[in-house]
């Protein structure tokens, strides 16, 4: 049973398609990096999975149940803007969120709030630092004891230390409970440490979907003379060229021809290659 599957999902806002014809299945226990440029439809996809937005076409299922305007009991969602009641204290917020849930673990919340430096229960939520705010938001999400955790930009606005600590909380959750996580972020180097699966979206469509190791192994970065580019075999994703030298990102590449140096890309250069390709497609369209 996949925690999250999408079948030809599309979402149109007036005339613009935010997500179009997206199909994928997230395997259980994975920590998925949902990446893509700004406006690629990452947020829309997560919000559809959380039952906040209804798809225009297709269907999303969480734990084999269609998402129909309501979040699945085993799913938790962390919104990008953290959407917490800022005029309440942490203690009051905890009580309010607990009251809105049938299944709630006060122990789990206490545990998460106690991690790192610990959060002051009597502080107003609005006065917390960005890091502590994220910690509170994650604690609220984990209080539901989810089996699928949807995180929309959990690391945005955080300083490096808070980013690291937030990732540690998420990793602790994964290690303790085997929770499946889907998180969107721009911070590829941070994602690399925690994620084992990548879902690259652009222009509302899935570009790459698979385990990071496998995906990286399928790609090659070749560096060689511009004049001999035609000797390279494989599917070209994108290329950057200087006067003499060409750097190519290839899928299903054959061994590098003479005069070319081939390496396996890291996650960052892979994603960059795809984003560059999609930008070129868009500007030429």
């Amino acid at each position, binding site marked *: 049973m996949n925690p999250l599957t999408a079948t030809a999902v599309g979402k149109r806002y007036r005339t613009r398609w935010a997500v179009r014809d997206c199909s994928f299945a997230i395997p259980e226990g994975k920590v998925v990096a949902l990446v893509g440029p700004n406006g690629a439809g990452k947020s829309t996809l997560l919000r559809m999975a959380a039952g*906040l937005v209804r798809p225009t076409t297709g269907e999303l299922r969480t734990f084999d149940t269609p998402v129909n305007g*309501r979040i699945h009991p085993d799913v938790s969602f962390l919104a990008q803007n953290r*959407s917490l009641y800022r*005029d309440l204290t942490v203690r009051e917020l905890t009580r309010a969120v607990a*009251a809105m849930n049938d299944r709630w673990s006060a122990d789990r919340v206490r545990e998460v709030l106690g991690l790192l430096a610990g959060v002051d229960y009597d502080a107003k939520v609005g006065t917390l630092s960005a890091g502590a705010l994220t910690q509170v938001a994650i604690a609220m999400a984990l209080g539901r004891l989810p089996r699928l955790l949807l995180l929309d930009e959990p690391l945005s606005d955080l300083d490096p230390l808070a980013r690291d600590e937030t990732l540690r909380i998420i990793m602790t959750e994964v290690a303790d409970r085997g929770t499946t996580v889907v998180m969107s972020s721009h911070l590829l180097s941070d994602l690399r440490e925690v994620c084992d699966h990548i879902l690259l979206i652009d222009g509302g469509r899935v570009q790459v979907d698979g385990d990071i190791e496998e995906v990286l192994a399928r790609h090659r970065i070749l560096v060689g003379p511009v004049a001999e580019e035609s000797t390279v075999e494989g599917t070209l994703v994108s290329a950057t060229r200087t006067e003499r030298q060409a750097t190519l990102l290839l899928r299903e590449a054959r061994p590098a021809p003479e005069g070319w140096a081939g390496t396996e890309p890291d996650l960052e250069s892979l994603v960059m290659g795809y984003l560059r390709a999609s930008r070129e497609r868009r500007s030429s369209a």
Partner: protein
Amino acid sequence: MIWASWRRQRAQLITLLGMVVIGAGVITLLRSNMIDAINSSQLAHCVTQAIDECSAPAEVQKAFRTEWATPFQTAQILIIGLPALIGVFIGAPLFARELEQGTHVLAFTQSVSRTRWMVSKLVVALVPALIVLIVLQYLVWWWLTAAGALGPRLNGSFNPVNFGIDHVSPVGYALFAFALGTFVGVVSRRTLVAMTVGLGAFVVVRFALSGLVNDLVPAQRREVPAGSDVDLRQGGGLELEFGWLNASGQPIPHDKVSALIQACKSTPSGTPNTQEGFLACLPQSGLAKKYTSFIPESQAWQVHLVDAAIFGGLAVLLLVGTAWALRRQS
């Protein structure tokens, strides 16, 4: 759930409580001052008696009315205005602020259903507001009753201001204003838009529908012969129609009536007619009867019920609309 809604609207509820306490204190004080003024001016018997039967000197009565006109009006305006205030400050921001700040996402991603969340917020916001309105309305009623014929009551139950602050009408208006505010708030997702548009729409609808209710309550009809000197106009009742009938009982158009009456005022020879001659002339000219249809003051409660039913019905429709819009909200 109720606790969560209560906690989030605590400041508002404390404000409401403050309004009631201050309002009750001020009204009680004003009322006792007024009773002292009535007694010291020896106007006590004018409270219950009709104005022309009251034997107190006219200037004393006039002085009292002048002195108390402003407090009475202020109290009436308070009750007239409270429904609008409830709509603007309680109804409009209720969901608009959540949608504007994105905090609705928190509630929408918990296990509670959107409708239950909506209902709990509605109840916590609306019930205290209605209680405050009813308490203040009762206090004003209690005070104005003590003033009796010396106060605004003199103008009768169907005076638009008196009607608007009596019986169940204010509750009907408040329900409507509140529901209108929440609906516009959910649709516009902007607090300021909801407050201004809600207020504008409330004022327009409130006055546009104010006449409608009179046609929905069965009126009484009275007819008297043309020469009779019985006064058809009912004290305090609401007159809907007044006119003349010909011998066969058909109404006569108003312009024709005034021409005929004018003609009867002089004899055929051109000299002014006598009173007897005038009265005898009317049936001869075809003005057989005077008639009126009216709602007696004793039936005012029926009008209030119909009025509240109209505005309450609109409120229910708007709340259903709010629930529908919230379900579609992302």
